[in-house]
């Protein structure tokens, strides 16, 4: 009969309230944007009854898409503000230290951990280096890309003379060729984010179970706890 051993866990407060609020509003916004965005591209079965004025189905789908988009944009702006004024963990997904050789050797270490070659990963207060790279490329740049192409598409509706058209549509459309190409790339961006979300959720659950530190609860409470007291 085994007896449960009591162990103490070291804890570090790493994610401030702004970061946590930002994380969950982004998660919500991306969910809404993904669903409504897909439906804008492939609308549901035609509403076959009544006058056009009786319904507003596409109108609501687009309305929620635009609302969620503005929430995402404002959240992203807040996040950049936190990166500037916050602690170094607020900055790391924007500026991965790719110039350091130690960074790349730790990336390799993480890859070996995910390839099930080595028995345990290192401990990190913030992101591990591989997660940092994935965040930087798949999340940060894709989101910037989606904000720019999204505002460009939105500016087509608001029309010439509006800030969306002046600052985005007027140069994004010629850059991609034409509006249809911007739509296509905006679609591809959505699928990039879907792939990111799948990876992110899977890895967060896996790390929470298998790594030496807390993951999911950290983004709720802000505290990072470590399951062992050994050094790296």
């Amino acid at each position, binding site marked *: 009969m085994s007896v449960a051993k009591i162990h103490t866990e070291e804890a570090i407060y790493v994610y401030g309230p702004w970061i946590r609020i930002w994380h969950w509003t982004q998660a919500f916004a991306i969910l809404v944007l993904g669903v409504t965005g897909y439906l804008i591209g492939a*609308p549901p079965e035609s509403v076959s009854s009544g006058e056009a004025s009786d319904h507003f189905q596409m109108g609501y789908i687009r309305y929620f898409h635009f609302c969620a988009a503005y929430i995402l944009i404002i959240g992203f702006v807040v996040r950049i503000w936190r990166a500037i004024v916050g602690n170094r963990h607020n900055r790391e997904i924007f500026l991965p230290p790719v110039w350091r050789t130690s960074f790349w050797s730790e990336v390799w270490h993480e890859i070996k951990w995910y390839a099930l070659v080595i028995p345990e990963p290192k401990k990190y207060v913030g992101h591990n280096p591989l997660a940092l790279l994935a965040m930087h490329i798949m999340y940060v740049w894709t989101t910037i890309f989606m904000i720019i192409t999204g505002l460009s598409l939105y500016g087509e509706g608001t029309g010439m003379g509006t800030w969306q058209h002046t600052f985005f549509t007027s140069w994004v459309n*010629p850059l991609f060729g034409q509006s249809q190409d911007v739509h*296509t790339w905006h*679609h591809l961006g959505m699928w990039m984010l879907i792939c990111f979300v799948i990876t992110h959720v899977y890895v967060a659950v896996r790390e929470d179970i298998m790594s030496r530190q807390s993951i999911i609860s950290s983004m709720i409470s802000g505290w990072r706890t470590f399951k062992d007291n050994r050094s790296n």
Partner: protein
Amino acid sequence: MHETFYDVMRRQGITRRSFLKYCSLAAAALGLGPEFAPKIAHAMETKPRIPVLWLHGLECTCCSESFIRSAHPLAKDVILSMISLDYDDTIMAAAGHQAEAIIEETIEKYDGNFILAVEGNAPLNEDGMYCIIGGKPFVEQLTHAAKHAKAIISWGSCASWGCVQAARPNPTRATPTHKVPGIGNKPIIKVPGCPPISEVMTAVITYMLTFEKMPSLDRQGRPKMFYSQRIHDKCYRRPHFDAGQFVEKFDDEGAKKGYCLYKVGCKGPTTYNACSTVRWSGGLSFPIQAGHPCIGCSEDGFWDKGSFYDRLTDIHGFGVEADADEIGTTAAVIVGGAAAIHAGASAVKRATQQGDQE
């Protein structure tokens, strides 16, 4: 002294009453207030007419066909009689050497002071041998005339973007006007469409003759007054789009009720043109009103975006032709599958490790 527009019109047997009617309609077509009708009339009575050379490269003449159908009969009579006086090889009376000589004559007489209208485009491969006009490659005629022109109008999608002859793989290297080497930095107005709307064509010319300047252009060089909004923005079926009432396939109940054509591939939401406001054939109809989705003929490279009946572009370079959603679904399935397999492997690994520890 050069003839004025008014002189030419009177010579053609047009009454003053009809002339004034035309001026009012031209003002309305340009979106100007009623006080502009006398200004247009005054301009046409006093200004010497600006000669137009209308060159034809690789094209199908649909721009000319559209142009001569300009709804108001006077627009057709007036503008056509004016510009045909100079050079337009498909509809001018002269032919052969006499016709070609007119180009040189106009260039000499009105150097830097005539408008060059280009219909179609120049193929650049094999030194332009794929399009020969009067025994010489069209590209030579084009660059020669362009050098002396005041401004250039690129009629239609051919001259503006390249159109079907420039579609992949573009064997003759058909090249739109603004990309032809030797055109220099002459001001170019693009009037895309396959063909452009006749009233848009006559209005662009009328605007330039009346105000002696280019109409206000967007970043891609199209007149803002006709190309600043999408078909979708002013489509009379837009309420059905917002309601979610779609034609699912041709000849279904939705098609009979005139629902939105978005799901059968309408390119209205990505096409900048005036079809849903100006319409065609004297305001009679336009493709969507006739029950067919917009194919986006005034947009750059519309031949190379996959089927006319799909809203998503085919993306080349993946070995097979696929659209964004097909590529995305495949990627998501691969990532999801990889995560599942990895989760399984991780679980097995962990189970064996814990077994070791015990």
